[in-house]
């Protein structure tokens, strides 16, 4: 316990330095700014803004990136409520009741509750990270290569089970991602693999390049398809009465609690993440409500629960990254990319060798959430005006911004071309109903999986049963197999589809 406080004190000491406070503020602001723009999801936002953190010291860069991440998350919910356009997948469910509230002239309370819920969830999640961080790190040290490999398999299976759409196609995308990660030099022998003597490929495909392609460029191209259909029926009336009433607070408080709890748990699970948390929280609220018919007609719980859940999950998903070095979702995968660029290898060692980095980031999350609530409520008017910028002007700007961003990572023009190619690939994937998120996750985990698989087999002298004979590894593998079977069972599939269909009605 004493450790916890001294750690947190260290963290706040780092985070409260003026420069880090400023970076946190800028991150949260810019994240919200980009998150508000429809058609740019969290992943694309983080990928796009990654280069602007390169010039910073590692702590500052990570603090800023974390700020961008939850800023984007919050920006997404603002647009969901005001204009019925979810900025990201995590806030799709928020549109259901949030936009209805806005139509009834209650946009103010909806936004306020979303912010309060997010802040509360953020506080809880921050404490949770601090509490769980150290013990999980100890656990991580007991992990050998076989356990790591099994854990990653489990994480990927989670990602598949919780993803939308066909299980088979999601697995195919993961394997495609694993295959893409093989491009470049072999870690052990240094042999060039599938690089076709292109010098820029010798180091492998960059995460940022691929992410910007399949999420950034592909989304732009797809939105252009929709073209003139993208009309935005804005809530035109002025937002008055920002503060929620006493009744609103009373109604939403239990929902916030439940959302936070659900989100925290789902966030820790590898592959889970914020999207499923918000869906699950909404479904739960609807199930236990006395009068479920209120949902979809402007029930404040329908805003409070999913918003708290997605924010809680967004933050607790840092736990596996910081303790085990395994990114549980695509955004965290980008964080790994950012850390690697700064020469940090995420994992248990970071927590011991660079405590100021880890705890500084954790403390800054709490500060960032506080900043979000303070800056965003007064700035809502500006965000709404931003939405009136027509897409015909916005998309070329995004293209150029992304292009400069990718170029500046390595000063390599080839990277820009590659990102463009991945943009076309992403467009094709969307057209064939393949989800790009598992692909990115597979790509990030690929080298880690290969390395641990090799080591595990080397240690066991080529015995493949090592994954089943070591108890911890066996448990992980069994859980993965169990989940996969569950996902393929027709009854659960139907339930799972229902959860996702709800969002589209």
């Amino acid at each position, binding site marked *: 316990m004493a450790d916890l406080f001294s750690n947190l004190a260290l963290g706040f000491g780092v985070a409260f330095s003026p420069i880090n406070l400023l970076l946190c503020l800028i991150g949260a602001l810019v994240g919200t700014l980009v998150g508000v723009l429809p058609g740019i999801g969290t992943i694309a936002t983080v990928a796009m803004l990654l280069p602007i953190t390169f010039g910073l010291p590692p702590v500052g860069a990570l603090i800023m990136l974390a700020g961008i991440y939850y800023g984007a998350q919050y920006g997404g919910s603002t647009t969901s409520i005001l204009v019925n356009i979810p900025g990201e997948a995590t806030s799709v469910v928020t549109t259901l009741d949030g936009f209805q509230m806005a139509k009834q002239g209650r946009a103010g309370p909806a936004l306020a509750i979303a912010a309060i819920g997010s802040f509360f969830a953020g506080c809880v999640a921050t404490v949770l990270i601090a509490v769980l961080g150290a013990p999980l790190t100890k656990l991580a040290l007991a992990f050998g290569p076989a356990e790591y490999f099994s854990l990653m398999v489990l994480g990927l299976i989670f990602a598949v089970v919780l993803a939308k759409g066909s299980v088979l196609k999601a697995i195919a995308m993961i394997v495609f991602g694993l295959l893409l990660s093989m491009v470049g030099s072999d870690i052990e022998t240094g042999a060039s693999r599938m690089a076709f003597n292109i010098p820029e490929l010798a180091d492998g495909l960059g995460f940022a390049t691929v992410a910007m392609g399949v999420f950034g460029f592909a989304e732009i191209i797809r939105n252009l398809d929709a073209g003139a259909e993208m009309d935005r029926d804005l809530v035109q009336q002025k937002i008055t009465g920002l503060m929620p009433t006493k009744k609103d607070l009373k109604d939403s408080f239990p929902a916030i609690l439940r959302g936070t709890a659900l989100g925290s748990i789902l966030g820790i699970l590898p592959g889970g993440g914020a999207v499923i948390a918000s869906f699950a929280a909404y479904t739960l609220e609807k199930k236990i409500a006395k009068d479920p018919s209120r949902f979809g007609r402007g029930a404040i719980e329908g805003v409070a629960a999913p918003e708290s859940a997605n924010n809680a999950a967004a933050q607790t998903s840092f736990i596996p990254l910081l303790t085990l070095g395994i990114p549980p979702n695509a955004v965290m995968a980008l964080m790994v990319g950012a850390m690697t660029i700064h020469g940090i290898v995420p994992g248990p060692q970071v927590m011991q060798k660079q405590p100021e980095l880890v705890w500084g980031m954790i403390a800054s999350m709490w500060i960032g959430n506080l900043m979000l609530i303070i800056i965003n409520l007064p700035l809502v008017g500006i965000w709404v005006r931003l939405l009136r910028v027509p897409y015909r002007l916005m998309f070329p700007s995004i293209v*150029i911004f992304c292009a400069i961003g990718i170029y*500046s990572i390595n000063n390599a023009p*080839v990277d820009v071309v590659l990102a463009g190619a991945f943009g076309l690939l992403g467009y094709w994937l969307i057209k064939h109903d393949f989800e790009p998120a598992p692909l990115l996750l597979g790509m990030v985990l690929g080298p880690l999986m290969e390395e641990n698989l090799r080591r595990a087999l080397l240690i066991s002298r080529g015995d493949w049963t090592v994954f089943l004979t070591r108890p911890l590894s066996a448990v992980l593998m069994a859980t993965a197999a169990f989940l996969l079977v569950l996902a393929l069972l027709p009854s659960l599939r139907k339930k799972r589809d229902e959860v996702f269909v709800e969002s589209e009605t």
Partner: protein
Amino acid sequence: MSDTPSHAPVRSIMPKWVRGPQDFVGGIALMAIAVFALWASSDLQGMHGFSFGAGTAPRMFAGLLLGLGFAVTVVGVVTEGAHLATYAWRGPLFVSLSILSFSLTIRPLGLVVSAFASFMIAALGTPETRWRETIIVGICLTVGCSLLFPYALGLPLQLFPRFLVQ
């Protein structure tokens, strides 16, 4: 991705026994990628003893992808599924051209020229573009990026064409 399964009556070029063309084509494409990867990694060393060679993992994943692609194809044949979506040409073409022009011109011509030109090319991607406002926004964006990246963020980007600087 709600707009993906377009239910518009597309002229089907698929044979009748393909019930889900979207999956059918998707699966075949994945198999093609897998075969390509198998070919590309065929010159790499395989297992020796019980330690992996450079080519073991790539071939393993490619083999897996081949199997999964085949499974997706089979699903496309057996179960009723979405038609092929229609592709637009204008957006993809001009966005790609814009990216290409950026990567070709950034080194020799510098950020200012390259960003502005690429902005204009990208703007061709939609018929809704109104040129006067696009030019104004393009200039503002170029100025903004020229200040943001090299100065505020300290990234080593060249601003002006090389032949002017020297």
